[in-house]
């Protein structure tokens, strides 16, 4: 008989002090007795099934609250924008009221109750795409440099700086742009652009303030650059090392390796990163509000004042004149919500397609 004593230490069981001396039938008895004791002890503690289940459901509930937030936002916006929807329907997004006397378009006229989202949609699109135009080539260049060319010692500080800059509040960028960038544009860049490219119609010289689409586009570009570049970097790092080695082994130069081995493999994720940057730019509020000039008009010139969906909400919401005005602003908010959800969901899917398996790090 060589039955082993269970190695459970319950301080009150005395046999554990000298287990080696027991043998024979006594031993079997002792074992069964002690097993009973252990069982009794464990039963007296109760099992934790109820606590476990409760805890689990609590956690599930909190996780579900994220869906709750989305539903809550959507229902609130839908309910509050009913009035404008009933009044204008889909016309809100593309029709414009033409003043019969002056034959000028009245885009947004709270006093007389004419509301059209068109100038704000235009402003949002123009400033966002301007920002992408400026930011994307630079962001990809930075990402390529950081992942493929940069000496190891430089990589961490540069990544740290980009992370830091992505976290600086929008209102501070706006303040900086208002104080530094706008005068710079007004006194130097704009006159040059008007002189050189005024013929194209995109750079009219009827706005002496320096505010406008171009200023908004530049601030937005500065703000989305860190996001696009850090996500692109993440996607490029996810490309397996063997791809690079294989291309290099075929005799490629470093650039050919990057083009064929890395960029081509990561292109879906890079597109995702760009669209994510677009989503940020579409919804960015404070910095844009401070430098775009806030006039609800559609003008071809990039130097003209404009307004965006988020800027008009920030400007007019607190002192909206009447329910219809408020409702129209709510509808703009709803449109912004839906658009950013679609854009972000699409971008996330693309990024996930590439970095699948590793949790995403950038915000």
């Amino acid at each position, binding site marked *: 008989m060589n039955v082993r004593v269970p190695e459970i230490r319950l301080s009150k069981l005395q046999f554990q002090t000298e287990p080696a001396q027991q043998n024979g039938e006594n031993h079997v008895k002792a074992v069964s007795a002690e097993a009973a004791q252990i069982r009794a002890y464990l039963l007296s503690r109760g099992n934790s099934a109820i606590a476990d289940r409760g805890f689990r459901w609590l956690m599930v509930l909190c996780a579900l609250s*994220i869906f709750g937030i989305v539903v809550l936002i959507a229902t609130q916006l839908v309910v509050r924008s009913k009035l404008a929807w009933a009044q204008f329907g889909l016309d809100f997004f593309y029709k414009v009221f033409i003043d019969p006397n002056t034959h000028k378009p009245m885009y947004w006229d709270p006093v007389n109750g004419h509301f059209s989202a068109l100038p704000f949609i235009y402003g949002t699109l123009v400033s966002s795409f301007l920002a992408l135009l400026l930011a994307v080539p630079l962001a990809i260049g930075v990402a390529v440099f950081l992942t493929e060319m940069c000496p190891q010692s430089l990589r961490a500080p540069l990544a740290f700086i980009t992370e830091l800059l992505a976290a600086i509040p929008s209102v501070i960028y706006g303040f900086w742009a208002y104080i530094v960038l706008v005068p710079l544009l007004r006194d130097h860049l704009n006159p040059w652009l008007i002189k050189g490219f005024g013929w194209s119609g995109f750079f009219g010289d009827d706005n002496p303030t320096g505010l406008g689409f171009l200023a908004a586009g530049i601030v937005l570009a500065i703000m989305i650059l860190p996001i696009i570049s850090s996500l692109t970097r993440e996607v490029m790092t996810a490309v397996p090392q063997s791809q690079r080695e294989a291309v290099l082994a075929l005799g490629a*130069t470093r650039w050919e390796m990057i083009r064929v081995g890395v960029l081509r493999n990561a292109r879906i994720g890079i597109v995702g990163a760009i669209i994510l940057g677009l989503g940020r730019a579409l919804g960015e509020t404070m910095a844009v509000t401070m430098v775009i000039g806030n006039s609800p008009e559609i003008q071809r010139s990039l130097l003209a004042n404009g307004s965006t969906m988020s800027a008009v909400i920030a400007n007019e919401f607190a002192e909206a004149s009447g329910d219809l005005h408020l409702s129209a602003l709510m509808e703009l908010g709803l449109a912004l919500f839906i658009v950013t959800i679609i854009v*972000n969901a699409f971008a996330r899917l693309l990024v996930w397609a590439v970095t699948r398996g590793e949790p995403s790090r950038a915000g």
Partner: protein
Amino acid sequence: MRARIRALTDGAATGLAVLATVLVVAPLVAIFAYLIYKGASSLSWAFFVETPKPVGEVGGGMANAILGSAILLGVGSLIGVPVGIAGGIFLAEFGRGTKLANAVRFTADVLNGVPSIVMGIAVYSLIVVPQGHFSAFSGGVALGIMMVPTVCRTTEEMLLMVPNSVREAALALGVPNWRSVLAITLKTASPGIITGCMLAFARVAGETAPLIFTAFGNVGWNTRLNEPMAALPLQIYVYALSPYDDWHRLAWAGSLVLIVLIVLAVSLVRYVTSRGVLKGAS
């Protein structure tokens, strides 16, 4: 010939990438240095202890806005941190690989990209309209909602870094699952989770858009949650667009306070994640 062209292309591409990096990093660093220089030269003791003065009088500070921001962030954290951490626990401990967890993770990421101003008007319609007036509480709720997705995702990430053997060891000792999660896994990952919460906190601290129609701002002292309350970013926004140099100075100083908060949070996160979550705690 071909080889030379290829070598030249390679050199050109390298040059362009370096150029892009310089073009990006130099202005960004310049902006950052400018902000710090302006803020440091505007900061004074009065900034931290005095309330804003009426137009025309020199001096004054943002003491009420700092207190207001602290209260708003406190309310926000009370809502955002527990819910976010619990959501993260679900994602990392209970829901791994399930469809529900994937859906939650995806929604959290998407919610992260929803503009803050939309959160602002949603909370306005949810709380301010039924109440009939602007209130600090509604501002706190708006900030709290914005914290949830960030905290949730960071918590998940940090929990995933805890090795499975730690969980198994706890369970093998007969510890109930809920205790093993709270006392073992969560505790092991706690440095990472705390700094993650700090990052969410610092990001939300600079949010202006959701506060314009909820907390609204206030020129005097207020500690009552039921009334409009001043907040640092709101005050910066108002002062930045004013024509007065003195107010600009106050706004620069306020910006510096926010930036310091963010630098601290980001570097702490970096420090903790680079050191590995486990070393300090196990």
